[in-house]
C-alpha cells in the first residue's frame, strides 16, 4: 500500500500510479493537454506541473510515478503561475481564430485558457503562418493551431499502428505531416482527429456546418458495417447526421473506429434512397402506394403458393438487417408461406465455418471476447487480412504484438506486416499440406489430449513429415518446425480464421485441420465477419435447416415450441440453400422470391448467372434502402428504413448482442413491419408493436435467449451464452477435401476486401469514395514489369466467365501469381468473373483457383 498526500488529503493506492492518476482517483483536478488515457505517456506540454515536497523543481504529474509518502501540491502560487506561463507560450503561435474554428466549444486549449490562462498575452511578435492544408479529401490540417502535443502521432503510431504522420522540422517550425506533406496515404481511421485537443486535425465531412453546441442529439448505436460491432455516437443536427465519433470506455472499440465506421455514414442521407414502393408495369418500375404494393405482394404470393405449392417460394434474409427483422422474416417464410427455403449471404462462408467448428466443439466455441485478444501470447492468422475485413479487431492483433505476443500468419496479411509476424507463404493451393504438417508436428509435441474423441478419430492418422511439406508447399522444414514450436509453447493462443479460407477449395478439411491445431494447443477460435449481423442472421434461423436457436427443423419438439407461439405449422423438410435457390430459380422450380436487404445480382459469386436465374423468377420482391442491381429486375420494390432510423439488435462476431438506436427520423417502415403487413394481408396476423416486442418473443421461445431483454442488453449482460442453453455438437464430422488444383496458370484471381468499402452502403458514402474512388486490378511489381504496366494503366482482366476493364494498381504486398479485384463498385464487381463450385459440407462457394489473364490496353 502506498500513501501519498495531495493538497493535504491522504490518498491510499494499491499500486504505483502517476501523480495525475492518483489525483484523479481522489477527485482532484489537474489540467492536462498532451496526456490522453489511450496513449503512451509523453510529458510534453508541461500544463500538468505540480509541486512535490523535496523535489526542487515543478514536476509533470502525468509522467511522475508516486512513491510512498510523497507530498504533492497542485494549487500553489508557483503552480498556477507556471500553468499560466505554459498557456501564454502556447498562444504565442496559436491563432485564436476560435470564431471560425470548428473545434471551438470542444477545444481543450480554449477550455484551459479560459480556466487557467491570462486574459491577455504579452507577446507582440507575429504568429507563425502555415496555410491550412486542404489537399486531402477527408482530413484537413491547420498546423497554425497545432500545439505539438503529439497526441495524433502517438495515436497513429502506438495505437493504430499505421505510422502515417510524424512531427517534421524543428523548434518553432515543427508541425505534423503525412509523408507526402499533403494528401494522406493512410488507413483513414480518423483516430488522430479524435485525440487532437485543438482544431489542428479535423474532418472535412462536416466542415463549417455546425457548432458542437448546436448538435441536437447524440445517439449511441452500433456500426452498420462489419461484425466487430463497434459502438458509435451519432451526432445529429436538423435530422441530418453530422458526425460519427467513438467514445472512450464504450463498446468493444473503446474510443477507436475505422474508416468505414467513422466516415461511412452518408449513405443514410443519400439522395438515391428509395422513397416509395415501386411496381413493375410494362417492364418499367413505377411509383406506387404502400397499399397497392403490399396488396400486390400478398395476392401474388398467395396465388403462387396455391398454384405451385409453398416450396415454389424462397426468401433471402440479410446480414445487414437486425435480429428482429430476420426473425420476423423467417417466421413469415416458415409460418405464413410454409417453406424452409430461407437463407442469407452468411452462407457464403461464415455460416458453414461456424457450424462446422461448432459441430466439433459445441455451440459458442467461437464466441470469444475481442478484448482478450490483446492479452494472448500468440495469435495465429490464417486466410486473409483481419485489418481490412474487421479493422478494429485487427488493432487488437497489432496490440498483441506490441505487448510482446507473437503473430503467426499463413498467406497474405499485409496489415500485420509491420508487426513482426512469422509468415509462412506456401505455394498456391498447398495450404492443406502445410496445415497437415503442422497438425503432425503438434501431435508429436503435445500428444492427443483425449478429451474430444470426435476430432481425434479424424486426425489420428494424419501424418506428414516436414520434408514432404517442404516438397509440396516450398515452405522450408525449418520454418514449419519453428512455427510448430511457437504454437506448442504458447499458453494463451488465439486462432483467427479469415474470409479467404472460408471460400477456399476443400475448406471443411482445412477447418478440421485448424480445429485440430486449436484443439492440440488449447486455443481460442475467432472467425472474421464481414457484415454487421452475419452472426445474428444465422442465430435467427435464417438458414434452410435450423430454427432460431440452432435446432434442426426436423426436431418436432422444437418446431412445436414455435408453432404454439406462431399458431401456424412449420414444415419439417429442410429447405433450399442460397446456391440451391439459384439453381432452382434457373430451372424454373422457384416461382417467387422475397429478398430482404440483399443484392444477390451483385453479391453472389458468378453474379451474371445469379442475375439470369433471378430474371427467370415469375415474381420477385426486393426490399431495400436503395434501388440495387437486384431491385432493378424486381417486380415489386419496397423501401425500408435503414440503420440509424430504426431500433433493433445486432449480434457481433463474439456473439455479443447490442442495441441499435434511432438517431434520425424518417418516414417509412422497418423491414420487420413491412413483412408483418404482408403476412397480415395473407391472413396470418403478426402482432408486434415494436422491435422490442419482437425481441421478447425471441427470448421467450428460443432457449438460447431465455430471459434476455433490451434492458439486460443495455446493461451489457448480453455476452454469450447469455443465460440460455447452449447446444453441444451432434453429428459426425464430415469433410470434403476438395479437388486437387495444380498451379498451371500464370495468374489467379483473388477477391480483395478493401478497408474502405463494403459494397452497396459504402458506394454511397462520399468520404470513402474520395479515399478509394474506383475499382482497380492490383498486381505485384513483378507482374507489372512482366506485362509492362504502370500504375493507372488500363487492363482487360479476363476469366472464362467474362472480363472487366480496370486501371492497374501496383501493390508490393501481393504475390506474383495474383490479380486482386474487389467486389464493391457498380458494374465492376469481380464476382461477375467467378465460376464456383459448392463445398458439399460447408455449403460455401469455392472461389479458388480461378485462372485469369490480363492484357494491356482495354477500353
Amino acid at each position, binding site marked *: 500500500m502506498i500513501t501519498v498526500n495531495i493538497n493535504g488529503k491522504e490518498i491510499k493506492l494499491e499500486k504505483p500510479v502517476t501523480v495525475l492518476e492518483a489525483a484523479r482517483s481522489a477527485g482532484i483536478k489537474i489540467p492536462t493537454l498532451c496526456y490522453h488515457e489511450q496513449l503512451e505517456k509523453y510529458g510534453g506540454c508541461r500544463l500538468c506541473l505540480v509541486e512535490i515536497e523535496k523535489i526542487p523543481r515543478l514536476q509533470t504529474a502525468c509522467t511522475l510515478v508516486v512513491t510512498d509518502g510523497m507530498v504533492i501540491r497542485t494549487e500553489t502560487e508557483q503552480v498556477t503561475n507556471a500553468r499560466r506561463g505554459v498557456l501564454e507560450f502556447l498562444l504565442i503561435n496559436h491563432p485564436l481564430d476560435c470564431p471560425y474554428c470548428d473545434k471551438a466549444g470542444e477545444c481543450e486549449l480554449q477550455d484551459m485558457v479560459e480556466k487557467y490562462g491570462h486574459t491577455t498575452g504579452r507577446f507582440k511578435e507575429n504568429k507563425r503562418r502555415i496555410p491550412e492544408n486542404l489537399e486531402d479529401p477527408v482530413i484537413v490540417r491547420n498546423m497554425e493551431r497545432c500545439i505539438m502535443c503529439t497526441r495524433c502521432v502517438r495515436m497513429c*503510431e502506438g495505437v493504430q499502428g499505421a*505510422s*502515417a*504522420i*510524424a*512531427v*517534421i*522540422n*524543428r523548434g518553432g517550425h515543427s508541425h505534423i505531416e*503525412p*509523408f*507526402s506533406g499533403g494528401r494522406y496515404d493512410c488507413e483513414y481511421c480518423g483516430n488522430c482527429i479524435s485525440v487532437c485537443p485543438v482544431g489542428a486535425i479535423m474532418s472535412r465531412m462536416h466542415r463549417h456546418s455546425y457548432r458542437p453546441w448546436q448538435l441536437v442529439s447524440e445517439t449511441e448505436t452500433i456500426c452498420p458495417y462489419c461484425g466487430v460491432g463497434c459502438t458509435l455516437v451519432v451526432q445529429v443536427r436538423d435530422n441530418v447526421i453530422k458526425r460519427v465519433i467513438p467514445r472512450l470506455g464504450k463498446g468493444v472499440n473503446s474510443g477507436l473506429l475505422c474508416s468505414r465506421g467513422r466516415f461511412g455514414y452518408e449513405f443514410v442521407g443519400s439522395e438515391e434512397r428509395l422513397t416509395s414502393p415501386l411496381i413493375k408495369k410494362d417492364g418499367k418500375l413505377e411509383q406506387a402506394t404502400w397499399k397497392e404494393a403490399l396488396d400486390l405482394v400478398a395476392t401474388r404470393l398467395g396465388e403462387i403458393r396455391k398454384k405451385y405449392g409453398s416450396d415454389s417460394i424462397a426468401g433471402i434474409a440479410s446480414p445487414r438487417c437486425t435480429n428482429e427483422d430476420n426473425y420476423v422474416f423467417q417466421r413469415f417464410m416458415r409460418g405464413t408461406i410454409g417453406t424452409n427455403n430461407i437463407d442469407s449471404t452468411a452462407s457464403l462462408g461464415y455460416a458453414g465455418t461456424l457450424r462446422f467448428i461448432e459441430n466439433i466443439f459445441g455451440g459458442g466455441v467461437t464466441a470469444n471476447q475481442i478484448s482478450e485478444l490483446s492479452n494472448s501470447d500468440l495469435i495465429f492468422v490464417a486466410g486473409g487480412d483481419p485489418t481490412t475485413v474487421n479493422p478494429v479487431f485487427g488493432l487488437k492483433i497489432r496490440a498483441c504484438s506490441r505487448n510482446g505476443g507473437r503473430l503467426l500468419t499463413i498467406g497474405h496479411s499485409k496489415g500485420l506486416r*509491420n508487426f513482426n509476424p512469422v509468415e509462412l507463404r506456401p505455394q498456391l493451393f498447398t495450404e492443406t499440406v502445410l496445415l497437415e504438417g503442422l497438425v503432425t508436428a503438434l501431435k508429436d509435441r503435445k500428444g492427443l489430449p483425449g478429451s474430444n474423441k470426435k476430432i481425434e478419430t479424424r486426425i489420428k492418422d494424419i501424418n506428414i513429415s516436414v520434408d514432404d511439406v517442404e516438397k509440396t508447399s516450398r515452405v522450408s522444414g525449418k520454418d514449419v518446425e519453428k512455427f510448430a514450436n511457437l504454437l506448442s509453447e504458447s499458453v494463451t493462443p488465439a486462432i483467427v480464421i479469415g474470409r479467404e479460407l472460408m471460400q477456399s477449395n476443400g475448406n471443411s478439411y482445412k477447418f478440421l485441420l485448424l480445429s485440430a491445431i486449436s484443439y492440440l494447443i488449447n486455443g481460442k477460435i475467432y472467425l472474421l465477419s464481414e457484415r454487421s449481423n452475419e452472426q445474428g442472421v444465422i442465430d435467427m434461423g435464417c438458414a434452410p435447416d435450423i430454427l432460431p436457436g440452432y435446432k434442426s427443423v426436423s426436431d418436432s419438439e422444437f418446431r412445436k415450441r414455435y408453432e404454439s407461439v406462431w399458431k401456424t405449422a412449420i414444415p419439417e423438410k429442410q429447405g433450399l440453400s442460397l446456391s440451391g435457390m439459384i439453381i432452382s430459380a434457373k430451372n424454373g422450380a422457384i416461382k417467387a422470391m422475397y429478398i430482404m436487404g440483399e443484392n444477390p445480382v451483385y453479391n453472389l459469386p458468378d453474379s451474371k448467372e445469379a442475375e439470369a436465374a433471378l430474371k427467370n423468377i415469375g415474381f420477385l420482391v426486393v426490399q431495400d434502402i436503395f434501388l440495387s442491381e437486384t431491385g432493378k429486375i424486381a417486380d415489386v420494390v419496397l423501401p425500408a428504413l435503414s440503420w440509424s432510423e430504426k431500433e433493433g439488435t445486432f449480434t457481433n462476431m463474439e456473439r455479443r448482442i447490442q442495441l441499435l438506436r434511432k438517431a434520425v427520423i424518417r418516414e417509412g417502415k422497418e423491414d420487420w413491419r413491412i413483412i408483418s403487413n404482408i403476412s397480415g394481408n395473407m391472413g396470418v396476423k403478426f402482432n408486434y408493436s415494436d422491435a422490442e416486442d419482437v425481441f421478447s418473443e425471441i427470448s421467450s421461445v428460443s432457449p438460447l435467449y431465455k430471459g434476455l431483454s433490451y434492458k439486460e442488453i443495455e446493461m451489457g449482460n448480453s455476452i454469450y451464452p447469455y443465460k440460455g442453453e447452449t447446444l453441444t455438437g451432434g453429428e459426425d464430422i464430415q469433410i470434403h477435401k476438395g479437388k486437387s488444383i495444380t498451379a498451371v496458370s500464370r495468374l489467379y484471381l483473388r477477391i480483395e476486401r478493401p478497408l474502405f468499402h463494403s459494397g452497396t452502403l459504402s458506394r454511397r458514402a462520399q468520404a470513402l469514395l474520395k479515399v478509394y474512388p474506383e475499382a482497380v486490378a492490383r498486381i505485384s511489381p513483378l507482374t507489372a514489369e512482366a506485362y509492362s504496366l504502370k500504375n493507372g494503366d488500363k487492363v482487360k482482366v479476363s476469366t472464362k466467365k467474362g472480363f472487366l476493364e480496370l486501371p492497374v494498381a501496383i501493390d508490393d504486398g501481393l504475390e506474383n501469381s495474383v490479380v486482386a479485384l474487389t467486389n464493391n463498385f457498380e458494374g465492376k464487381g469481380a464476382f461477375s468473373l467467378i465460376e464456383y463450385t459448392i463445398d458439399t459440407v460447408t455449403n460455401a462457394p469455392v472461389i479458388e483457383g480461378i485462372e485469369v489473364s490480363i492484357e494491356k490496353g482495354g477500353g
Partner: protein
Amino acid sequence: MLSEAVIKELEEIRQRYPNARAALLPAIYIAQREFGWLSPEAYEAVSDILGVPKTIARGVATFYAMYKHKPMGRNIVHLCTNVSCMILGAERLVDILKERYGLEPNSTTPDGRFSLVIMECIGACGTAPAMLVNTDFHDNLTQENIIQILESYK
C-alpha cells in the same frame, strides 16, 4: 533502386545499432548520397531496408538542417550569419554571393553550381565570418577571398 553494394552497406550499418531506428541518421545520409537529395524515393529505400516507416524516417531527417531536403547544386555553401559572423560582415557576404552568382539563401544557381544554406553558428566565432563548402571549412572570410575560394569549386 539501390545497388546491391549500397543495400549491403545499409544492412551493415543496421547491424551496428541495437535497433533499426537508431540507424536512421547514417542510413538517411547514404540514401541522400545515392539519390542526390532526400527525395521520397530515398526515404522509401531507407524504410524498406531498415523496416522503419517512411513517415518516421522523414520526420527524423527534417529535424536536421544539414540534410538536403530538396534537390541542390553541386556545391553547397553553408554560410554562418549568427552573431559573431554577422558583426564581422557576414550579411554583406550574403549580398556579394547574390551579386556575383545570383545565389540567394535557400536556393540554387540556375547552372546548378552552388546552393546557399544560411547557418546558425558553426563554432568558428573566433575566426568569423566562416562557412563550410561541402565538407571543407573556410574562415576569416572577406569580401575578396570568399570569391577566390568559391572559384575553386566548379
